[in-house]
Structure formats: C-alpha cells, structure tokens
C-alpha cells in the first residue's frame, strides 16, 4: 500500500542507494543538486528499474547532473542544446525504456530552442526537466533567454529582453504534461516528477533553480529569496501510481483528479482558486497573469494524458529495433529479384 517498505526497499526491492550517482561537482547549495535529490527520491518511489532508464542531457551545469543520479542507468551527455534529437532516436529505437532528460535554460531556451519545440511537437515519451536559473553558470554568469525583464546580472547589467517561458511554449505546442516547480520545494516537485514519469508522451517540468554563485543576489528574480517570496502554488499535488490503491481523503469539490495513461492518478487539491489543468487556454492565461503580478505560478499547469505518443504515429513494432533479427529486416532474395526485373524492363 505504501510506496516505501519498512526495510527501506521499494516495490522492486531496491534501496535509495541504488538510485544515487556520483558525487556532485556543482557549487555547494546549487538548486540543481536539490533537484537531483528529488529525482533520486522520485525514481526510488516510482520503483524504476535503473537499467531500463536512459538519462540524457545537453551541455551546462544542469546537464552535468545525470552523472549524479541513477549510476546504473545508461547516460548520454550530448552536445549543447541537442538532447531532444538524441532522445527522439533513443525513444524510437527502444520503446521499453524510460527516458529522463535534464536540460537547462540556456540549453533549452537558447541554443536548443528549435530541438525542444520539435520534441514537444512530436510528443516523444520523455520526462524533460529544465533546471532553470536564468543564467549561464558554467561560462560564469551571462544572461540566458529565461532571465526576467529587469533582472540584473552579477556584473550589474540589467536584462531588458522578454524572457522565453518554456511552459507557455510547450502548452502552445500541445504538450500533454506541463508543470513548473521550485528546486527548494521537494514536496511539490517529487509528485510532479513521479507523475511525469508515468505520462506517455513528452512531459515538460520547468524547475526554477537558483544559481548560488551567479544569480542569487538582490536584483535577480531567480534567487532563493525572490522565488520563495513570489512562489504561488496552484494546488497541492498527490500522485498515486497505478500499482497503489490508497483512498484519497479530499472531499469532492476541493480536489481534481487526473488519470494518466498507465492508470496512475494525480490528485490536485485546490488552494485558492479552482484550477482546471486540462484547459490549455486557462493555463496560458494563468502563466501570463502570474508574470504580470511578478509571481511564479507553480504546480501542474496543463495535462492531457490521451495525446498519442510519437511511436504510435510511426506504426512501429513493439520490439526494440536493436532486437530485430536479420530475417526480419533483410527481405528475401525474391524481393531483390523482383526489383531487378522491374529495373530491366522499366516497370517499377
């Protein structure tokens, strides 16, 4: 009934240690490390088989983090901004894998914006986490495309350009799972990640993650202090995986339930207002108003569990492409003979 057995093992008999990775080399206190912690916890609680997971990333501080969790999984640290194309190839080649992608705001919203959008458009099954600090950490403090208007860099320079909102873009492109959270709020982030892992399609989770070295000062809109003060959660989230069956204690009218493709359920307990995460227009409106009021709206912004995943469109066989035997992929001699006859006479 409970996700964690008393002996510290999850439903597949693994301990939390089985989901850990190498020691982080990021700055002490980095928001990304807190996200890594939530990922480890979510993967443990979800009972993911580590060797069935492919963890993918691009380039940047955030993209280093897959080395810090799930050390038994296959990892792929791609080139800058191009993780989505790698993920697309991986996903299509083996539908049985769980794909966990980690990117940053530079990696997603600047150099990788095109690939990110096309990933969402194709609805490639993948949990795509944007560890969003509004700044280039690894190259020491340049603005990224998600930096808010009026945000100052450590150098004192003020950003005048509109930020790119990856959640709004994802919703616009019909992404079936879009959420925003805060690295310092594991209570909210963990169920979001677990729910995203159950979603069969692209799940975009934008996590505001303050950069302690280059973007945690007064004047930064993505500092710990600023985010804590301006975080406006939409709801409390509970995620119930398909293999669990616990009674929900929310009274009707106070909560909203979403059933995912694999039978898992997300329960959203309303906070202030009644928020319907299946309404894309409403979601965009909420993001927009939040920005106007200087608030980071967090929670599950939009969900559509029924959108067809990419491989369905391709009409692919169930088996991984790697597992197809020669007999299944090399047509018999008769086929070559038939083609050659056509080329002899010109009747194709």
């Amino acid at each position, binding site marked *: 009934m409970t996700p964690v057995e008393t002996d510290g093992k999850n439903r597949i008999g693994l301990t939390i240690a089985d989901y850990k990775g190498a020691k982080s080399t990021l700055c002490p206190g980095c928001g990304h490390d807190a996200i890594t912690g939530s990922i480890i916890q979510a993967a443990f609680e979800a009972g993911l088989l580590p060797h069935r997971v492919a963890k993918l990333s691009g380039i940047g501080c955030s993209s280093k983090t897959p*080395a810090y969790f799930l050390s038994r999984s296959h990892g792929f640290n791609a080139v800058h901004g191009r993780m989505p194309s790698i993920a697309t190839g991986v996903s299509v*080649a083996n539908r049985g894998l769980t794909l966990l992608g980690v990117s940053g705001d530079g990696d997603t919203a600047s150099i990788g914006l095109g690939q990110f959008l096309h990933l969402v458009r194709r609805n490639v099954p993948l949990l795509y986490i944007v560890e969003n600090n509004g700044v280039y950490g690894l190259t020491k403090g340049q603005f990224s495309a998600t930096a808010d208007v009026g945000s100052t860099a450590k150098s004192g320079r003020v950003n005048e350009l509109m930020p790119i909102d990856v959640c709004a873009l994802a919703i616009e492109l019909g992404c079936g799972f879009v959420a925003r959270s805060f690295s310092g709020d594991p209570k909210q982030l963990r169920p979001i990640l677990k729910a995203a892992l159950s979603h069969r399609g692209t799940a975009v989770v934008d996590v505001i993650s303050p950069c302690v070295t280059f973007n945690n000062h007064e004047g930064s809109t993505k500092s710990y202090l600023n985010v804590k003060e301006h975080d406006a959660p939409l709801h409390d989230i509970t995620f119930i995986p398909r293999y669990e069956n616990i009674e929900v204690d929310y009274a009707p009218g106070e909560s909203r339930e979403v059933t995912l493709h694999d039978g898992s359920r997300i329960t959203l307990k309303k906070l202030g207002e009644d928020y319907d995460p299946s309404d894309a227009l409403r979601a965009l409106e909420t993001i927009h108003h939040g920005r106007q009021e200087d608030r980071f709206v967090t929670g599950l912004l939009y969900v559509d569990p029924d959108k067809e995943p990419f491989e369905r469109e391709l009409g*692919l066989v169930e088996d991984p492409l790697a597992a197809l035997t*020669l007999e299944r992929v*090399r*047509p018999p001699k008769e086929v*070559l003979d038939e083609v050659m006859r056509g080329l002899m006479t010109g009747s194709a």
Partner: protein
Amino acid sequence: METLLTATTNDFCIHVATVNGSGSQTANTTLMRAIFQMGVPVSGKNLFPSNIAGLPTWFTIRVSERGYLARAGGNHVLVAMNPETSVADIGAMGPGSILILNEGVPSPAIPADRTVYKIPFSKLVEPLVADAKLRKLVVNMVYVGVVAGLLGIDPQEVDGALTAQLGKKPKALDMNRAAVKAGEEYAAQHLKPAPFRVERRNKTAGKILIEGNQAAALGALFGGVTFLSWYPITPSSSLAESLMGYLERYRRDPKTGEATYAVIQAEDEIAAIGMVLGASWTGARAMTTTSGPGLSLMTEFIGFAYYAEIPAVIWDIQRVGPSTGLPTRTSQADLLSVVFLSHGDTKHVVLLPATVEDCFTFGMKAFDLAERLQAPVFVLSDLDIGMNTWMSEPFTYPDKPWDRGKVLDADALSKVATFERYRDLDKDGIPYRTLPGTDHPLAGYFTRGSGHDEKAHYTESPETYKRVMDRIAKKYQTARTLVPPPVVDRVVGADIGILGFGSSHWGIVEARDLLAAEGLRTSYLLLKAIPFTAEVKSFIEQHDRVYVVEQNRDAQMAALLRMEYPELGARLRSILHYDGLPLDAQSVVDQVREREEVMAR
C-alpha cells in the same frame, strides 16, 4: 576547332532542351529505355535547374555501343523545345549535327552543314488533346516519335517503354501513345532519316537501368536499416524517398501494419544526425543522407560520434559548393571536409562509390563498418552517380549475414567480472559496448563528449586523454583491414598510372581507351575507400607519374595522398575538373596528353 560529325551507328548523343516542369521526364525516359531495350547501352544525364517549373532543363542521352557511360561532348542530335534557350542551344551544335526544332523557337542563322528539321509540334498535338494544359505535357511525346522515326528506334520498343511507365494509367497511356504515333508518322512522311542510327544489338540483355540514390536505398534495405532520419536537400532527397518507398513496401507487416523501421523527417540536419546517434546508441542500424550544407550542420555531432564512439552511416551526395553553390550540379569537393569533419583531431572512414553497384554494396557495407568500428562512416557519392541513370549488371543478393560489431548482451555480461566501455581488450582499438535496456546491472555506462577514461568516467587527465585518442587512432588502422580495397588494373609496361574515385571512374575508363589508341598505355587504380590500403602505396611506387583525377579545385585527394605518402608526393600530378558538369573523357585525355608532351619535350 569544330570537327565535322560523321554518320554513326549506336554512337552519339541526343540533347533535349525543355522547360523544367513540362513533364519531359517521361518522354526522355521513354526514348532512353527504348534504345536500351534494343540492346544498345545508354546513359541519361539530367542537367536541371534549382527550380520547380519554368527554368530551362536539359537531358542528354548518350548512345554508346561500346558501353561508355560518361558524359560526352559533341551533341549529335538536338531537340530544341525551349524558346528561352533555343538560340544558345542551336548555336552550340557543331557541323554535321541534326537539329529538331520546335517550329517557331528563336534561332540564329544555321550553317548549311547542320541538318535542320522544323517540326510543328503544337499543330501535331492539337487534334490529339483537347485540354491546353495537358497538351503542354503530351507535346513532349511527339518529339519522342519524331526522334524515334529519324534515328530508327523500333516503334515497338518505344511503345514497350511507354507502357512500362504508364501501364497503370490507361487514359494517359492512350493519349501519349497517340502523340508518339503522330511524331513517328510525321517523321516517316516528311523527314529523311538522320545520319545517326540506332541498330539492334545484344549488349543490354539482363542489365538494369537505375539511379545511384535508388541503388543506395536498395543497399540500405538489404543491409537491414532500421532507422533513417533526414532533412530534404538536393541531391540527396531521392535516396531517402526511394528508401521510404522500399521500406513501406517490403518492411511493413501486411497483416498487422507494423513497421520494422522508423523514418523521421527531422527539423534540420543537426536533428537528423542527433536522432541517428540516439537510435544507433540504442542499437538501431541508423543512417542519414545529406549534401554539403547539411553536412556542415552535422559537424559538431560527428565529432561527438567519433569521440564517444557511436556508429552512424552518413551518405553525402555531393553537389557544388561552397555555400548554396550550384545545388543541382555535381562535384567531389566535400572530400577533405568529410575525411576530417568536426573540430579537434578527427578522421573518418569514407567509402567512395563509383558505380550504382557500389552504391548498393556500400549501402550494406557502411552499416557493417560503422557497427564494427563504432564510428561514423561516410559514403561519398555525388549528384552524377546519385541522380543520373546508369546501366548496370543486376545486383547480387548478399551472401553474408550482417556484422553488428562488439555488443555485449546480458548473457555476455554475466560471464564477466567488470565491464569497461572503452577498454581495448582485443588490441584492435575497438572496445565493447552495451545497449540501453540490457537486463544486467553491469550494462549501464555514461556516454559523453567530454574527456573520459576507459570506464567512461569523466576525466581531464592529460595521460588518459592521450591514451584514449591514440586508441581511437588505432581503430583507424584496423579500419584499413576492413574497408573495400581499390580495383587495380596494372598494365605491363605502362609508366603512368591514373588514380581516381567516385563518378570520375567513367570518364577515366573511356579516357584510357582513347589514350591507348594514341599509343599511351596507362595503369589504373580506382580507389574505393579511405583510409588507404597497401595497394594504393604500391600502385604509386610502381609508376613514375600518377595522374590523380578528381572533381574539385584544390586537388583534395592528391593532398590526402601526399599526407599519407610524403615520400611519393613528387610522382603525383593532378587532373582537375570542377565546373559542375560530370567529368568527360576528353578532359582527362587532353590534360594527360598535354602534360606528357611537356615531359617529352
């Protein structure tokens, strides 16, 4: 100097000038196919603009009893349909040629030693087709009839060639048949036969006509491709599209509709190669196809694949650069950039198809090499091979299974104590890999483009970096034992050798015969792959002078040879051809003769 063309049988060129998008392709294919079915070797070259409709296009059919398939100068027969280009087209025709002119096209004064046939094409087609739009397409079939009548092409073969193409569309077939007939009848009634004749032979029996890109697609099909991602670009699109057609037909379960392949049209070439790498890392047989500009975009990922050791097959159907260049013309100028594509120390395995048969064979071989070597493998084709029509022996069904390289599955992992992704256990430079999803706790490893050690762990250690790079270089030495060797024709007593690759082959073959007729014997090495094999060095050593023929400005292959064999550099001479047109034999002959005469003086 213009030489007078003499009357010939089965040895001439037909040059058809039309407007792009006017549907002349069916007409030209009918003509070419009919001659082929008469047992006479043909080749077809399409000189087309980067345009969908409206700009001029030319199609040249070379009729060659001796089986020469290279582009040839000296147009014997002109069909001038396009008023925009007719003045230049007519002006380019030499003494003795015949000119079939669409009545009314502008024309310069034509000297008396050319034979002119003015044909009222519009009048001939008018009674046959009511719809004016359709008339513009069908009128091309009238010239097929006229040319067939003038040159003695068997009407039955013309009809057969037409039926082969349009047999499934009876209405179109009837209309086009009538147009051909109108042309043939007009020629019979009003025109005297031309001095150039097609006569039945038996030199094409059992042979096929095919474009290189189609052959490459067949190679990929029988090589067991499971993943293709690509971005449309001329002249490579027809490879992808042809492959998609074959896959749909032969690799989708007729009952369940399930496909044993995935094709993705990517958003750009960066994504195309990224998807290939992702799929290939996961164990698919993955490929992409592109041309120069696309290749430039793939550069960063190619370096990644080289260093992280991920298989990938990349077809480059070369066109003329730099930049957009001449996108519908042919070239071999991507050579150096492909061999060293990406930043840092990189060098790649490159296959060099010269024939459509090579395209088929390398279509399979490239996968075996990529998976064996765990590296990107390039196939350097070009527009001439890829998009023109070539006669060939039919392709043979592969007699060997595939090579999927060194992959450890769960069983294999259960027999080892440790797995290290980049450990050179066999001393051939090639490590073992595992695929994501392998059901064993040892299987996982971390793939990265940053510095790594044998365990695939991050490191910036100078010793480790160097050790890994040296090991990857060793893999390149192993590649020498795996790539297809060159084809060598060593002629006893020949002092000079010719070294060529790719589509230059056809011009060289013919040039050697022409040179031999002048008393100049040559040996020949047709290079099939990079890195070079031992045969290349001994070939250069065996000849005082080696003419390296290539279709680029900067003598790129000669530069590679000089890098590899600096001590032999003085023996190399370059013959370069880089105007975007396919190489013709005469260009080779003239340059060799000129250099040899200078030597003799």
